[in-house]
């Protein structure tokens, strides 16, 4: 075959090819555009779902930060037999109870809302009045104080449009008179779990989460970073390192519930006293988080250019000095990013904690690492399972709190990564 033929034939062939090419162009560009739109569609879909999720949680969660309150006035002066100094002593509420505050609030309520007032206000109403007095003892000298007390669960339900018709009617009337309002419930952030959605709070779970995370961090971070350093910088390829490496890579993908089974079978067997404790939860989550830290740590360490190691080695630095003087400081932002992401994942983890008894009802925040606690995601799970419909909004509110924490953590991670990405 002659590779180069007569130029005229060649030109003709070239022209016919170009004509064919021309003919196909429009449809090629169309499919290019289509492809692009499909990609944009995929991205937008994800963004939309995220938006839908956030908006639905936020809107319902916003309601969850509110509760139904009744406005009423309570006569004080001369009605409470209590020395103001008693309020500064321990258990001031006990003092007020003895002094007859519960009855006083009840009678004030029936004055304001009629004989069935007992069913309208929450059992805890007098406590809130009492706390008000404790924070400001000067109120004891007032004739009458204006208070907002939590409505009973039934009334709150009726205000939302549930429950029986009579109560709904009553709620509507009270609301019209301005006596029944939905008010922002600052107490939600400082109380703990309770049976009544009107008086639950998130602080107990939040504190439990923070303590659990602290344990996780203290265990997973050093171990993770040190193993990452070992594997990336020092380990010579042999069977041991292969096994370590395979273990870590697999652990990173082992379903979280399996870690729960591990915690149940190992940690709880070793420390039966500490069922439900942040210590055990933190240990279980640490095992889950550690591989994440190792893997991201290794990537960050790998990203430190070898030229820097070479430079330090050639200066006569020992391998340990190379790592602690140069590699670790440079890899640290990357390691921290990975750690934060791993911690964020641990913070949202539920299933393994269900396995180790962190689903208990705990009405007070944990006092130390070995006292029973619950954590935010488990609290969400428990509330989502509650009978009382008032919990639906509270669940969303708890989700909002959890999401805020996660968004902040992710935000920090993203910031760190953008800030320190590829400085060399």
């Amino acid at each position: 075959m002659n590779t180069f033929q007569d130029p005229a034939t060649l030109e003709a062939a070239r022209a016919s090819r170009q004509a064919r090419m021309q003919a196909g162009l429009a449809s090629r560009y169309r499919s290019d555009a289509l492809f692009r739109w499909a990609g944009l569609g995929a991205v937008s879909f994800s963004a939309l779902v995220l938006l839908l999720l956030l908006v639905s949680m936020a809107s319902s969660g916003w309601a969850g930060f509110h509760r139904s309150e009744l406005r009423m006035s309570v006569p004080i002066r001369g009605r409470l037999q209590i020395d103001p100094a008693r309020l500064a002593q321990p258990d001031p509420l006990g003092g007020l109870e003895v002094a007859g505050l519960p009855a006083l609030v009840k009678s004030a309520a029936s004055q304001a809302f009629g004989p069935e007032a007992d069913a309208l206000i929450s059992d805890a109403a007098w406590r809130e009045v009492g706390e008000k007095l404790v924070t400001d003892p000067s109120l004891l000298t007032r004739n009458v104080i204006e208070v907002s007390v939590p409505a009973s669960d039934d009334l709150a339900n009726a205000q939302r449009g549930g429950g029986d018709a009579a109560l709904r009617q009553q709620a509507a009337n009270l609301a019209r008179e301005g006596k029944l309002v939905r008010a922002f419930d600052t107490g939600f952030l400082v109380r703990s779990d309770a049976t009544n959605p009107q008086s639950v709070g998130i602080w107990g779970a939040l504190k439990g989460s923070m303590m659990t995370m602290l344990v996780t961090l203290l265990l997973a971070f050093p171990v993770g970073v040190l193993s990452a350093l070992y594997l990336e910088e020092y380990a010579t390829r042999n069977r041991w390192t292969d096994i370590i490496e395979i273990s870590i890579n697999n652990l990173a993908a082992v379903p979280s519930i399996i870690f729960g089974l591990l915690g149940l079978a190992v940690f709880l067997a070793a420390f039966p006293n500490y069922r439900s404790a942040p210590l055990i939860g933190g240990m279980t989550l640490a095992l889950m988080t550690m591989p994440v830290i190792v893997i991201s740590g290794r990537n960050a360490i790998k990203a430190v250019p070898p030229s820097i190691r070479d430079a330090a080695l050639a200066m006569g630095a020992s391998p340990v000095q190379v790592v602690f003087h140069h590699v670790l400081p440079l890899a640290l932002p990357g390691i921290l990013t990975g750690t934060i992401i791993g911690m964020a994942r641990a913070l949202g983890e539920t299933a393994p904690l269900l396995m180790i008894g962190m689903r208990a009802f705990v009405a007070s925040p944990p006092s130390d690492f070995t006292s029973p606690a619950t954590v935010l995601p488990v609290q969400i799970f428990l509330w989502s399972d509650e009978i009382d419909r008032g919990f639906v909004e509270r669940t969303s509110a708890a989700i909002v709190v959890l999401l805020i924490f996660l968004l902040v953590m992710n935000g920090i991670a993203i910031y760190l990564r953008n800030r320190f990405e590829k400085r060399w």
Partner: protein
Amino acid sequence: MSPGILFFLAFGLGLVGWLAGRSRAWAFRKTAPGGRIHSLPDFHAWYVGLWIAVPTLLFALLWDAISPGLVLQSVLSDPAAAALPAFGFEREAMMGEARAVATGAARAVFNSEAEGLVEPYRAALARYNTIGLVVTLVIAFAGGAFSFLRLRPDFTARTRVERAVMGMLFIASLVAILTTIGIVASLVFETVRFFGMVSPVDFLFGTHWAPDPMSTGTPDGSAFGAIPLFWGTIYIGAIIAMAVAIPLGLMSAVYLTQYADNSVRKIIKPLLEILAGVPTVVYGYFAALTVAPAVRDAAQAIGISNASTESAMAAGLVMGVMIIPFVSSMADDSIAAVPQAMRDGSLAMGATRAETIRKVLIPAALPGIVAGIMLAISRAIGETMIVVMAAGAAANLTANPFESMTTVTFQIVAMLTGEGSFDHPATLSAFALGMVLFLVTLTLNFIALRVVKRYREAYE
């Protein structure tokens, strides 16, 4: 003395040794020829410091473990202890109260019987604290003296300290192996027990899952057929979820790596990461409360009458959304690992971007993408909260996505938090299910990681 104090003491003494070693090394340097000694003063300092701190810390740990027993023995030998109730737990509770008062952790005892023990306790504590303190000091002194006397200008302190550091790193990396062993061990015993009651063949190949945790007597192996669970797991995690996640994830990755310009990418990528960071319990809640009713209504609207609220569809869809960022970032990595030269080569041939992506980049990145999908599947089938909250408990062996189905993870949670007693085969089946799940995800990961590795190596 509480162990906390011993720990502090260990650190304090270590610090003293550190300072001493350092100043000694500085002194060497002043006199050494040329001012050079083998190791920097800091290494000498660490050498001495570690020789003091490590043994004392070990002793503190040991003492923490044994001293309460010693104290207890000594209190029990006190005549006041004769009055104690014979029964163990109550007696221990009183001892505990007495100790709490003796150490100042509590103000008073609940049980007056404990009152008499407070003094003996106090005395015993004081005695053993003194012993602990003295032994700590002796150990610290011995370690310090031994190490300090070894310091010389040509002493290889650096090598030794660095060897200790390396040992620490190595031990840290062993934690991963221990964890894996722990997982296997915690699953294997109960699984073996389970298979002692139910034959593995019935379990792995039976198509009927209806264990009754309340039943008594010999278990009925035919009620432990796990195929419906495996099917539900695969149907939700590997079919429905992947039908959502693969196209959307892949197209997102393509868009982000090939089309979007930098500013768009800077916004979208974090958004996807947030989607990946939403806790599964939130997805579960979202699935149960928002998606499931919508799916049911939609199914009924198209004429599927027995559509369930807890449908495989709802759980699968939400799980798919959860997996999108995972697939997209794996695909992103794989596509990015294809050398720029491939893309340039294709573009220089006059290919459009879509052609370049479809015909060159994706085929070239395919091993990585496939491995990524395997990892995504392994994550989906191990996902728990979404199915617990949205998929249901019914072990149906059906292909209708609007029916309720159950999964392996759901049953693990149900069996372990349910009514069965702990040695009932229904409860033990959770561990066998966990074992299956572990082995399947292990296999998937193992294959996927090998594929990824080989693929990365192919492009250096």
